[in-house]
């Protein structure tokens, strides 16, 4: 990856995380507050007072984008943490399990994987109706761990059978120590990559679900909600579409960059 690309990717992630953390400071006003005169302040183009303009209901887009970042990023991080945790537990348990259990666990993961994630989320949401952000994050996390568990399983099995593991076993090193000094280091790049990919997948998923009105309920600002708020006729108010779209696209691209960056050092080490 080029230096510029890396700089842009890390810069974007830092900016998004910074906005999420410092939202109350960066945009102290209530993101759902209407303008002083809701009729006059509707759909104002970007100006000094409203750097990103206002929406149909006269709300400040900048404030909503900042607070939306906080919610969307929280959902993505919770879901990604769940995905990584479940995938890690499932994959490594299977890798160390006896042959029959290992097979059964991977078949289960394949079954979970084979049901489209969107379908799982949609069926849950049909039952529950719209969910609070944290609950939605949990649903997205529970629906998305299977592919990563397979990757981690493969890597753990390979690490268990690696010559360096065998030679450690020939030295009398026990299972626990093997797990921590041989298997875990081999999984680390996959864990980092998997976490980045999970964020990159969950962000557009949340945005889409919320956009279609089945994700996070109104009026909570999220990146998907901002797109929804652009309304039926966004053409006359480009700022309602461009800013949230740009933020979503930049974040997803940056996370994909970080994911491939996690893989890269491993490749160079192996090439030696």
């Amino acid at each position, binding site marked *: 990856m080029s230096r510029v690309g890396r700089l842009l990717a890390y810069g974007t992630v830092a900016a998004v995380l910074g906005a999420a953390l410092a939202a109350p400071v960066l945009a102290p006003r209530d993101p759902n507050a209407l303008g002083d005169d809701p009729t006059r302040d509707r759909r104002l183009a970007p100006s000094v007072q409203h750097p990103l303009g206002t929406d149909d209901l006269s709300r400040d887009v900048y404030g909503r984008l900042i607070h939306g970042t906080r919610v969307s990023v929280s959902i993505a991080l919770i879901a990604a943490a769940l995905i990584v945790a479940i995938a890690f537990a499932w994959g490594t348990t299977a890798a160390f399990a006896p042959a029959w259990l290992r097979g059964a666990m991977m078949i289960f993961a394949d079954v979970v994987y084979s049901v489209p994630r969107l379908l799982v989320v949609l069926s849950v949401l049909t039952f529950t109706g719209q969910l609070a952000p944290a609950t939605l994050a949990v649903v997205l996390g529970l629906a998305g761990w299977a592919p990563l568990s397979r990757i981690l399983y493969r890597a753990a099995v390979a690490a268990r059978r690696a010559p360096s593991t065998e030679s450690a076993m*020939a030295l009398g090193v026990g299972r626990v120590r093997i797990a921590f000094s041989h298997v875990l280091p081999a999984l680390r790049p996959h864990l980092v990559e998997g976490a980045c990919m999970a964020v990159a997948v969950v962000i557009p998923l949340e945005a889409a679900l919320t956009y279609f009105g089945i994700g996070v309920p109104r009026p909570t600002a999220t990146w998907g909600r901002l797109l929804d708020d652009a309304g039926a006729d966004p053409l006359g108010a480009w700022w309602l579409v461009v800013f949230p779209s740009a933020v979503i696209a930049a974040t997803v691209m940056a996370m994909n960059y970080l994911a491939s960056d996690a893989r890269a050092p491993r490749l160079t080490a192996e090439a030696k």
Partner: protein
Amino acid sequence: MTALLEVENLRVTYAGAQRDVAAVAGVSFAVAPGEVVALVGESGSGKTATALAIIGLLGESARIEPGSAIRFEGRDLLRLGEPEFRDLRGRRIAMVFQDAGAALNPVMRVGEQVAEAALVHGERDKARARAMAVAMLDRVGLPDAARQARAYPHELSGGMKQRVMLAIALLLKPSLVIADEPTSALDVTVQRQVLSLLLELQRESGTAVLMITHDLGVVAETCSRALVMRRGELVESATVDDLFHAPRHAYTRELLAAMPRLARPVPPG
């Protein structure tokens, strides 16, 4: 002389996808304390399977058939529980693998890997284990051992990595070292250095060596006795002199014929 290691009618089967493979088909031999014995044979003849059976590291796709026996220092290894076996590995029986580059843990400093042998076998004092490791690395000829102990495997040359493997294997002065083609991944000149180092260490600590190799030159130079395997069976067991000058089995003669002239030992007298 009582044997250090006795292998009796060893049979190892790998469960294959279509059918089972008898990798070792009834092999018997013994190794005396301090003896250097060669185990030779073509690729796939079952040398590694024999070695892994002895050290108890056959994978789960392999099974040792009933009727087999492996006795080491008076104990029946096939009846040993995993904790007791683990206690033997690295302390009484050690293994040197072919490709030190792959056998060393890439994310651990080599000094730590040598020290680990001591730490897993009861040494509580980390500083003392580290000092033992540095002394051993110095003994195997790692220049500036105290500093090099902090290096990662990829920072060392192939020969140096194999020296580190020897340091690990011989740190606790085991009574048996199984060396599975310990030099075949190295340059010819480096091979000799590593081999003579192995023999020096072996003599110092009175360790017996089971030397697995394709290379009859290595056998001639280092071993007193040779076992020849073919298709899972032991076809010849002879002193090295007899092996080179009066091979009994046709297969051994073939192996000898395939060997470059220069590497052969000079006939006595």
